[in-house]
């Protein structure tokens, strides 16, 4: 099952690259640097998906105490942190030519950075507790509080950066979204989502096999 999922993700990513560099036109206002958006936007969307899965799995664990939910939360948090890191890197590289500095306290980048630190703390907490059952329980609570915090982080960072009314939450890149650009974006979003599922399934299986290891 892993193999099929893995190949599907690989095909998706290849398709995404073709769309991003081949099909999508050269953006008039920003030039080709805009193509980084086909990487930056999918990774941030998949990161949010990952943390939503962590929330649901954490609630499920506290409800049924099923180890499968705990493993899903753990795997999804780890992949989520990975994607958040990629989002920050892509955002910074995109920022350098566009704004002249690697890091700007741009509202979107800042809130993604806060998520990165929060869920890094989640993985740190898991690492600090030896007893597996207790680690699962505590991580579930943290997974819920962190997820509930995301909308608050979003609003507060946006108001903090933009003085008055909060702009639309995820206004990616170019003002006009020509069909080709939209298509390229969609293909990449699907591709990265497939990659996320593949990684989570693979990581969760490793967690299960680590648990079943005889003494």
């Amino acid at each position, binding site marked *: 099952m892993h193999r099929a999922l893995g190949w599907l993700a690989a095909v998706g990513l290849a398709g995404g*690259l073709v769309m991003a560099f081949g099909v999508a036109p*050269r953006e008039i*206002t*920003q*030039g*080709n*640097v805009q*193509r*980084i958006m086909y*990487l*930056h936007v999918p*990774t941030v969307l998949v990161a949010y998906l990952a943390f939503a899965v962590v929330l649901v799995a954490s609630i499920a664990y506290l409800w049924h105490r099923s*180890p499968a939910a705990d493993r899903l939360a753990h795997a999804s948090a780890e992949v989520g942190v*990975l994607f958040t*890191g*990629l989002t920050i*890197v*892509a955002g910074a*590289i*995109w920022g*350098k*030519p566009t704004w002249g500095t690697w890091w700007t306290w741009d509202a979107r980048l800042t809130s993604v950075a806060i998520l990165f630190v929060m869920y890094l703390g989640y993985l740190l907490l898991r690492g600090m507790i030896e007893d597996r059952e207790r680690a699962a329980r505590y991580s579930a609570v943290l997974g819920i509080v962190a997820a509930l915090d995301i909308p608050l982080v979003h609003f507060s960072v946006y108001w903090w950066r933009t003085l008055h009314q909060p702009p639309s939450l995820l206004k990616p890149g170019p003002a006009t979204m020509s069909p080709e650009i939209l298509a390229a974006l969609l293909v990449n979003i699907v591709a990265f989502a497939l*990659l996320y599922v593949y*990684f989570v399934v*693979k*990581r969760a*299986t*490793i967690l299960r*096999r*680590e*648990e*079943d*290891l*005889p*003494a």
Partner: protein
Amino acid sequence: MTADHWGFVLSAYGIAAIVLGAYWRHLCRRDRELTERRSHAAPKAAHPRTNPVSPVQP
């Protein structure tokens, strides 16, 4: 004509590829390690042992 900054575009995709590839390799290596350790343990468990070690099934 705005400059194209291809260098930045390629480096962004390059770093993403490297990071995702490294994570994928890490997962595969961990998978292989686990299958090897299971194959070590398997022969030992074949013949009867003194104190039964029942695998923990939560």
